């Protein structure tokens, strides 16, 4: 069992989950799998953080869920973005880009 290669910045997990769900509705397992795949195994998300995060996002009204039959034929809880979640994703992406540009600039010049 590989340990996570990178610790996630506080708040970044929410952004990642929102981005993942923006592509298509997905269950919890799918979310963690997709993040892992897209980051080419750099980012692994502990279930212990994933589910509380999903519940928190749902509580804030950024995601909601439906139960649907999944690819393996079982019923799974599919999360999807709400309109509010979509707006949130935009703002968070923007601020993340600002932040990372700034950090990159510092790294390059220093």
């Amino acid at each position, binding site marked *: *069992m590989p340990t996570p290669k990178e610790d996630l910045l506080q708040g970044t997990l929410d952004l990642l989950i929102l981005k993942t769900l923006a592509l298509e509705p997905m*269950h*919890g*397992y799918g979310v*963690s799998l997709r993040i892992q795949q897209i980051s080419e195994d750099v980012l692994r998300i*502990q*279930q*212990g953080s994933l*589910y*509380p995060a999903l*519940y*928190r996002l749902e*509580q804030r*009204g950024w995601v*909601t869920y439906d139960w649907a039959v*999944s690819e*393996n034929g*079982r*019923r*799974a*809880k599919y999360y999807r973005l*709400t309109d*509010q979640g979509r707006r949130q994703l935009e703002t968070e992406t923007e601020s993340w880009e600002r932040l990372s540009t700034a950090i990159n600039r510092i790294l390059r010049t220093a």
Partner: protein
Amino acid sequence: MFGFLVRLMRGCRDLFGSKTRFEAEMDDELVYHLERVIQENIESGMTPAEARRAAHVSFGGVTQIKEECRDTRPMRLAREAVQDLRYALRLLAKSPGFAAVSILTLALGIGANTAIFSLVDAIFLKNLAVPHPEELVIVEAFHGEEGRNFSYPMFRDIAAGQQVFSGIYASGGAEFSRISVEGIGELPSAEAVQGRFVSRDYFSTLGVNPAPGRAFGQDDQEAVISYGFWQKQLGKDRSVLGRVITLNQASFVIVGVAPREFSGESPGNPVDLWIPIDSQPRIEQRDLLEVRTATWFRTIARLKPDVGLRQAEAALTALYRRLLADEIASGTGSLIHKAPNPEEARIALSPGGKGFSWHRGRLSQPLWLLTLVVVLVLLIACFNLANLLLARASFRQREIGIRLALGAGRLRLIRQLLTESLLLAVLGGAAGFCLFFLTRGILLTLASVQLDLRPDWRILVFTAGVATVTGVIFGLVPALQATRLQAVPSAPHSVGARASRILLPHLLVTGQMALSVVLLVGAGLLVRTLQNLHEFNPGFDSENVLLFELKHEDTTGQGVTGILPEQVLERLNALPGVRSAGLSGASFFSGSMNTSPVRVPDSRVNPDADAELRTERVSAGYLDTVGMRLLMGRQLNPGDRNVAIINSRMAKRYFPTENPLGKLIYFPRLDEQRRYVPFSSNLEMEQAVEIVGVVGDAKYDDLRQATPCMAYLPLTPGPTAGCSVVLRAATEPGNLIEPIRASLRQLNPSLSVGGTRTLEQQVGETLNGERLMTQLLSFFGLLALALACMGLYGLMSYSVARRTREIGVRMALGARRSHAVGLVFKQTLLLTLGGVLIGLPLALVATRLVEHFLFGVKRSDPGVLAAAVGFLILMAALASYLPAWRASRIEPAVALREE
């Protein structure tokens, strides 16, 4: 918006729906995830067992994840509260006996508090149901320290001259002897109908709009009726509007019905109908409207919004002094003896938003005392509950120990235990409220007030508040106590925990006993008082004596007008079953009296010059009928004039050594306004009466008051418009009333008989306050004792159960059964004596509050104290009888095999 609704619904389901929905979804979701990981592991080449293990390891603690997920949800406290509530409900349902006893105990305690509060609220706290009650003020005049009401002419002058009120009105009582309504006929109980003479601005000042119908117009022949009167007497018939109602012999048109929530400005004395004050001369014999000597109504006003109380008082005082000076100058002043100094006169305004009520003076002390008593009862109930919960907690030690060991927070556990006691309190409060609702009629009868004690939000809020406080009081200590032990299930056997655990229940029971002693002593003192008052010889004999008022109503306007005393007495004495009869001006023992300045020049002792003598005009046979003994001289005879019979006290005061017979008493003359003309220096000019007899002293208004000096004078000769009759019958006089009515109507159809009651009732009414207090205090005293005994019984049963083993050992070693019984009784006695030792000093202090109710008994009366203590010990012994019996039945073999 829609999303919000979905979340709201999910939230509600979360809170109150089955907990399984949220939990099940979470479980399903996590299981799904776990299965996918296992599958993934298998696909990567692990065996199913390895795959499962690896998946679980990677997952970490599922319980923790769940807990974290749960914590993200809002209203965690609320959700936990609901969870606690369910748990508490399940626990209660599992022990219905415990639930029933606790709820009943609380219902009694809380119900008593609700009942007393409802009275206090209705009489003392509630505002009148009118707009802006805070603007209303009661207007009174003061001459020096002496308060007085206005005469109607003075009221009119003030109303016309003032500029501080937006409205001002006069309101005085009206009584009727006959009422008939067009289309309905004569109403059966005219005397019970409360009428009110009110000035024209009454409804507009109060801001009350009669509906259906309207307020008075300018016509003084219009009447407004109350909702209660409309409903009870007139069948809520809308067509009564516009019909004629005849009061005595005056006719009025019913123009409106007052709103249901408004029944006049005197809580406890609802008004049935209002009539214009200008109609007073048509209802009553005497025209009071132009007389500056008659004060017979209250004055209430509404301050203009921008005028302060003090400012208004100053303006009114100036106005009143001016008017008073004019009045004195014109010689029409309202004062009998002393001419007032206008400079000493002032107007005082007091807040009138709660109306005025004579019940306030009458009931304030009893209610204040009862409030204290019901709080004590509730406290005893709390102690009981606390003890029950402590006993229960000892059975739950294991459960609580385990939960603490599993990491439950102490605060969380206390919260859960408190939820249980609050649930009990709320159920008890609800039951108490029902109890109050069912018994409020009895309460009103006891307090002899007429109130509409419909439960409203104020009473509900009060009950809920009391229940909550109660729940915390009786729940907190057991909760703290139960969660204090170490998180080790075996803790119950440790000695330290046991000592504090056993001490507290004993203290609580001792406290209950102490409070019971206080209440029992109070009740005992009042019972003694009532006995003393009943056994006391008042100087007259009330057995089989009937009282009634006789009125002559001039319906024809011709012939002889008035009652001829000789004729009436002849008629009454002729009735079978009548022993004797007599007439008097004012009713016997009714509190109404005449006093007059007198001069007694024959007396060597001349008490102060301003001496006033109480007088009563009576017919021949009167003194004999009420049972006052003649000590010297003769009785009054028909046709006597200018003679008097004095009482023993007067004889002793004025003629301590001489024979009073034949001495003269001088009374002043009256002018045409019926005011006394001051004595002239030559007493020969005045009216003299000769003392012809002396009767024994008697009580005249109140059994407690000292007997005043009294002179009985013959009735003024000739017909009279009204008088009071006393009549002694051979047997119970109740069934004489109809024959009397018939006989007197036959004599003269204009005569009406009213206010019939026995002398015993008349005297009994003056003891209403004492009776109310005695009944309620006895009831609550017994209730408190019953609760305390329940507590004692519970404690002793528990204690016997706990000591089974010890007692078994003692018996195995040869102790007799009586020894086991002795153990229990000894403990009971110690607890009770402890209660007595604390309770007696408390009682001696607390009974100060009832001191002024007492009659013929001291607060420290040894008989009462001994009776209270003896009764307490007896009841305590009874309560511990069953546990003692159980202790004596313990079989050593069985007891030793236990545990």
